[in-house]
């Protein structure tokens, strides 16, 4: 799983996002073992301490759980995945809204545009089927 890191952003944040994305897409299932620090470090060619920090942060926010002597596992807590999805959606929305604002749209205009787009997408899909 290659990641393109942005060298101008903290790497540990990028690793956290990377793992969360894998959980959301299902590449990592609830209860799955998270690769060990060393494994991840050599796979991504980054500093083990950085990986360690990322995993510790994930542990702190409850995304992964540490089982003594066994390593770290993706949380089985159902709500957590949804929370991550919402968090990521929130980030996407923020960026989207900011972009729309720059274009001069606001409030109801945006809602209308989005509703419209969803409508069009669904119709397109319907024709395909």
């Amino acid at each position: 799983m290659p990641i393109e890191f942005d060298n101008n952003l903290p790497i540990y944040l990028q690793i956290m996002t990377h793992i969360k994305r894998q959980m959301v897409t299902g590449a990592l299932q609830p209860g799955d073992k998270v690769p060990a620090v060393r494994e991840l470090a050599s796979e991504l060619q980054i500093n083990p301490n950085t990986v360690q920090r990322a995993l510790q942060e994930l542990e702190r926010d409850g995304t992964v759980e540490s089982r003594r002597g066994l390593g770290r596992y993706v949380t089985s807590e159902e709500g957590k995945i949804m929370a991550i999805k919402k968090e990521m959606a929130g980030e996407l929305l923020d960026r989207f809204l900011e972009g729309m604002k720059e274009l001069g749209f606001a409030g109801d205009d945006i809602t209308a545009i989005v509703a419209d787009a969803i409508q069009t997408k669904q119709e397109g899909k319907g024709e395909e089927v």
Partner: protein
Amino acid sequence: MSLLELANVTKRYKGTRGLNGVSLSLDPGKIVGLLGPNGSGKTTLMSLIAGLAHPDSGTIKVQGVPVGLATRSLVSFLPDQPLTEPWMKVEDAVAYYADFFADFDREKARELLSFMKLLPSDPVTALSKGMSERLQLTLALSRRVPLYLLDEPIGGVDPVARGKILDAIVEQYSEDSTLVVSTHLVRDIERIFDEVILIQEGKIVLQQEVEDLRLSGVGVEETFREVFAE
């Protein structure tokens, strides 16, 4: 206690080379990038810590011990000159270091050799530059010491060998030791650093945690370019 402590170290060579009143402290368990253009003092700094050169003034201590015979077994140095001798085969070089250093880990050396695709029966004089760098790195990393000094380990090698060497460094790094890597190639290697030290004309201009640097919005490479811009 810090792992490495330099207090006001000065070393003059002819011209501008050397070090000018360098004070520095390093903690255990870090991979540290020593960054600076050619001739900025990186090699001088490492040679002084390894005890291959002597400071004109100031003190250098490793684990609280002044640099000397006693610190030889605390520091593994990969200098810019080969650690091997021309008569050696790869296996002779490994045996040589195993014979002289009690901290040399033959098992680790064996693993690294196969990882680096080095054959024990190859004469060192027949190795290409890239392969030779790999062998030098194998020898330096196969010792188990608190402090490793690697002087330009990816200097003259092609990108493939470079990746291999970075892999080996990350793979073999143990969390309780500190690894100082000097380089002028920032982009390829910055991801393995915890901390960077920027050195210019024999003076340290910056020492900072890399992630903090990134958090402030300016990456290592950009900082490097800003500091060393003419």
